[in-house]
Every structure is written in structure tokens, then in C-alpha cells.
């Protein structure tokens, strides 16, 4: 298992962390359990974006659009047709993945900063569409209220502690799968494309295909996370999926270290947990992170916990 954590942690370290994770909700109050639940949700989103931004180096700053597609798919199908949430988890992932595929296909060839702009545009288009309530589907600015819950043999997952175990179980599964993926053929392809696209192409890698796969997979995981988010939040409205949300996810990946799974966990702790610990300074949160991004780029562009196969994309000059 230690080996499967990608060698980031020793065997003992891993056991201690899992132990703390299991005991934590029995010691902490509901408030802190909720904080941990949202942390977990952001870890899932950060991991999904990390595939796109971190592994392949595609600058996607519209990721909350895919998250939104997943959450809305869940809310609409659950409220109108009473589809079970366990079925909606893969369905929402599929919906967001298909959207990711269709949207990524024509724009994937764009250069870094142009791709960034286009994804911001897509994010805004999707948010405005949700706001404008097409065919009465999305409920406009008020959104949709979704009452169904995840059920295990008739037991509804409703209490914060139930959500805590559910979300972190998803995190564990996702981390496990992503570590395997990092070491697979496609994972190495992704890193190759990130480090040197032209060399990768010369080696016979279909770089376009590798990028589209990453985009689709990232979108799909974000979509599936949308289902968990919908179940937790009950009310799904466009204000949860603004462009600022995409910026936060982007910061999580960059601050943590591109392509680094522990980096994402650390980065989302910085974005979600740290402000709760420093509540007196809560309104300075984004001010601080804006500053942190600048300082990070100047002094430590590889991130807080850099990936082992660490990236040159933010390190070396491309000249002028």
C-alpha cells in the first residue's frame, strides 16, 4: 500500500493518517466534520482538474462548468424521474465527460494562454445558460432543490459523519485509481506531452488524443463529484459554479504542485481548511491567495509539494 501511495509516504505514515481519518469524526464536532466534507469535495475536484492542468499542462480555468453539468444532471434527473443517486453518480460523470469531450475536441490545439481564455468563456456561457433557465429545466437563479439522498440498504446518508465517510471513501478510491493511472502508459504519455509536446509527437504519441482523453476524464470526475455535492448541498444554483470557483480549483492545483496528488490534498486544505482555522482573517482569504500565487511563481514555481516527475513547464524560460 505504501508503494501504491506513489512512494510519497512511508507505510507507517499512511497507517497513521488513515487511523486519524477514521477517528476524527468521533472526536470533532459537526462543524469541523462539515469542513472536512467540503475539503474532501474540493480534493476530488482538485484531483480531477489536476489531470488536465497538472498531468498534461492544459490550462483549463473553466472547470466548474463540468462540476455544474454533473450537479445539474443529478438534480434534474433525481427530481423529475426519481433516479437513484447511485445510478446518477456514473450518469453525471458520463454527462460531464461527454460535454468535456465535445467541448475539448475543437479547442484542444490552442496554445496555453489562449486555451485558458476559451475555457473561461465556456464557463461563463454555461453559467449564464443555467441562469437563463432554458426550457424551465434549471430553475434560473433560484436553482433546484433536490431532496433525495444516497441510500445504503435503505439507510439514508444525511448526517455530517455519514457524508464524511462517503466523501473520503470516494477520495481514497480516486487517489488509488489516479496513482495507477499516473504510472500507466497514458499517464507517462501525458507527462511527456506536458514536458515537450513536439518531442512527444516525434516519438509517435498522438498528442491530440492524449489531451482529449485527459480533458474528458477530468470533466467526468468533476461531474461525478457534482452528484456528491448536490446530495450534500440540497440546493443547486448557478452561484455555486461561478468563474471564481474555477479560479479556486486552479489555485489548488498550482499551489499544491502540478501533477502532484499530495499537492492537491495540501492545496485544497490551504483553500478550504486554513481559512476556517483563521476565521478572524476569513475575508482576507482570497487576498492572501492572490499574493501567494505571485510569490509562488517568483520563488517556488514547482508548488508546495511537487510531483516526483517534476515539471519544467513553469520552470524554464521559453525565451522571448
Amino acid at each position, binding site marked *: 500500500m505504501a508503494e501504491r501511495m506513489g512512494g510519497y509516504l512511508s507505510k507507517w505514515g499512511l497507517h497513521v493518517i488513515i487511523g486519524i481519518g477514521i477517528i476524527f469524526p468521533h472526536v470533532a464536532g459537526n462543524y469541523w466534520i462539515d469542513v472536512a466534507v467540503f475539503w474532501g469535495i474540493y480534493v476530488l475536484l482538485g484531483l480531477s482538474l489536476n489531470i488536465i492542468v497538472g498531468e498534461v499542462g492544459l490550462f483549463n480555468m473553466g472547470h466548474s462548468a463540468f462540476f455544474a453539468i454533473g450537479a445539474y444532471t443529478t438534480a434534474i434527473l433525481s427530481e423529475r424521474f426519481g433516479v437513484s443517486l447511485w445510478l446518477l453518480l456514473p450518469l453525471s460523470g458520463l454527462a460531464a465527460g461527454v460535454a468535456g469531450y465535445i467541448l475539448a475536441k475543437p479547442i484542444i490545439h490552442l496554445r496555453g*494562454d489562449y486555451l485558458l*481564455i476559451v475555457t473561461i468563456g*465556456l464557463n*461563463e456561457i454555461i453559467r*449564464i445558460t443555467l441562469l437563463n433557465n432554458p426550457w424551465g429545466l434549471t430553475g434560473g437563479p433560484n436553482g433546484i432543490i433536490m431532496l433525495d439522498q444516497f441510500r445504503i440498504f435503505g439507510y439514508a446518508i444525511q448526517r455530517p459523519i455519514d457524508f464524511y465517510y462517503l466523501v473520503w471513501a470516494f477520495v481514497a478510491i480516486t487517489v488509488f485509481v489516479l496513482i495507477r493511472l499516473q504510472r500507466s502508459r497514458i499517464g507517462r504519455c501525458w507527462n511527456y506531452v506536458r514536458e515537450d509536446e513536439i518531442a512527444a509527437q516525434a516519438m509517435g504519441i498522438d498528442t491530440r488524443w492524449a489531451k482529449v482523453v485527459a480533458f474528458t476524464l477530468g470533466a467526468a470526475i468533476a461531474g461525478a463529484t457534482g452528484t456528491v455535492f448536490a446530495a450534500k448541498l440540497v440546493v443547486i444554483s448557478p452561484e455555486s459554479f461561478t468563474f471564481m470557483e474555477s*479560479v479556486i480549483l486552479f489555485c489548488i492545483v498550482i499551489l499544491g504542485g502540478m501533477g502532484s496528488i499530495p499537492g492537491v490534498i495540501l492545496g485544497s486544505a490551504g483553500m478550504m481548511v486554513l481559512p476556517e482555522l483563521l476565521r478572524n482573517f476569513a475575508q482576507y482569504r482570497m487576498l492572501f491567495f492572490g499574493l501567494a*500565487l505571485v510569490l509562488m511563481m517568483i520563488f517556488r514555481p514547482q508548488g508546495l509539494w511537487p510531483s516526483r516527475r517534476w515539471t519544467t*513547464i513553469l520552470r524554464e524560460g521559453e525565451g522571448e
Partner: protein
Amino acid sequence: MALFIEQLVNGLTVGAVYSLVALGYTMVYGVMRMINFAHGDFFMIGSYLGFTLVSSALLGGAIPLWAALIVVVVLSMAGVAIIGVIVERAAYRPLRRSSRLTAVVSAIGVSIFLQNAVMLIWGPRYRAYPPWSVPSITWQVGGIYINFMQVLILAVSFGLMVALYLFVQRTTVGAAIRATAIDHDTARLMGIDVDQIIRLIFLIGPALGAAAGVLLGLYYRQIHFTVGWTYGLKAFTAAIMGGIGNIPGAMVGGLLLGILEMLGAGYISSAWKDVFVFLILILLLMFRPTGLLGERIAEKV
């Protein structure tokens, strides 16, 4: 037909503002090959500075209102120009030699920082320019109505654009800017202080953005600390339309975008007008990233 001309005038007004903001994007891109993601926030800070100046005692009636408004515009431009130079020195200069994406991330950091600084100073809610800050004069010209603010916006923005064009095309410093845009190293060999030119660009660009911010603030009256991104994105679309790096292109692109947006709002639906703009942006980047006026530039390998 009346609706068409009315939307055309509205479009020209908004478009002139987009042009001013687009110039900042295009000049920075021209000289540094970098998209300054914080540029929309210079626009936003301009509108807040203008708000504070207008609300202060400046419009006491000692000088005519239109002259006072121009003083407000000039002071806001100066304030934001200083911020622009500081941002360049602190966040972009240390990264001049690193990769383009590093500078992009840094610019995003600057943008988040500026937005939240404004939120902490002026508060998170919408602020509104006081109603007496703009005279409610309306002229009727051949069946259509033009109000005072539309005339002021068109006059100030065209004045600034002509001044900039002459500055860049006719003066020695302007020639130095153009030379730097072509090649930093050669420009340096010709005795041009490239750092000085970049500082100048970060003085002019944000100042023009600030002028646009004050004018649009006076026009719509409502301002919010998050609008920088929306207007920034629109102005960037305008800059791309005209071919990024191309100064007259940004002017034409802004006007064209303003007119397209207002016609879309008038004839199709105003709830979807931002969607049209972003669709235009995406389609342009997909099919003609060098813009309608720009020439083809080979991608560096």
C-alpha cells in the same frame, strides 16, 4: 430602423469603452507577448477611484460639470497608472525570463489580489455613482436620442485614441515602443531602454483602462469589484478581433464588438448578450486567432 440606429449608437458608446480597455491588452501583448490577466481589474479600480472622486467634494460647482468629470477621469487615470507600474515591477518583472505560463499564473494572482483589495476597501456590495454626477441632458438628432454621457464617452475615448495613435506613430518614444515590440534584443542594441519602455506600457495601458472604468461607471452608474473579469474578457475579445498586438486593430475591434453586442441585445435577447460575445471569442480563437486584421504569425517551435 429607429431601433437599429439607437442600438448602433449604444453599441458605439460601449464599443469605445471596450476599445480603450482592449488597447491595454494589445499593447502589453505587443511588447511582452503576454496576456495581462489583471488588466480588467485596472479598469475596475478606475471605476472605483472615479466613484470616490465623484462622491467627494470635487463636483461642488466651482467649475462646470463636464470639466469636473474630465478632471475625475484624469485623476483616476493617474492613480491607476501608478498601480500599473507597481504591479509590473513587483509581479511581472521578476518573471520576464521565465516561461509564458508562469507570468500568466502570476497575473491571475495579481487579479485576485486587486479584486479582494478593492472589496476590502470599498465593501463587497454594489456601489452606485450618485445620480447628480451626470446631467440628464438629452439631444434629439434626426429622430434618435443621444444623451450627455454618450457624447462624453465618445469624445473622451476618441480623443485618447487619437492621442495614443499619434504618440505611437509620430514621436521618437513611439518609435522605440514599436521597435521593442518587434525585437527586444535588437531594440536594446539600438540604445533603447527596454525596461523603461515596458514601464511606460504599464503606465499607458492601465491609465486607458481606468478612463474606460470611470466612463462606464458614469454611464451605467452601478459598479462592483467583480466586473473586471467580464469587461476584461470582452475587451480581450475586441483585441483578438482586431489582431492582438495591433493598436488600430484594438480600436476597430472594440467598436465592432460593442455594435455586435448591442444589436444582439436589441434584436435577439439581452439575457444572452454576454453569451454572444463569448461565442464570438471562442470561434475567433478557434478559427482565426490572429484576428480579422492581423497577419499570420508562425508559431515558434
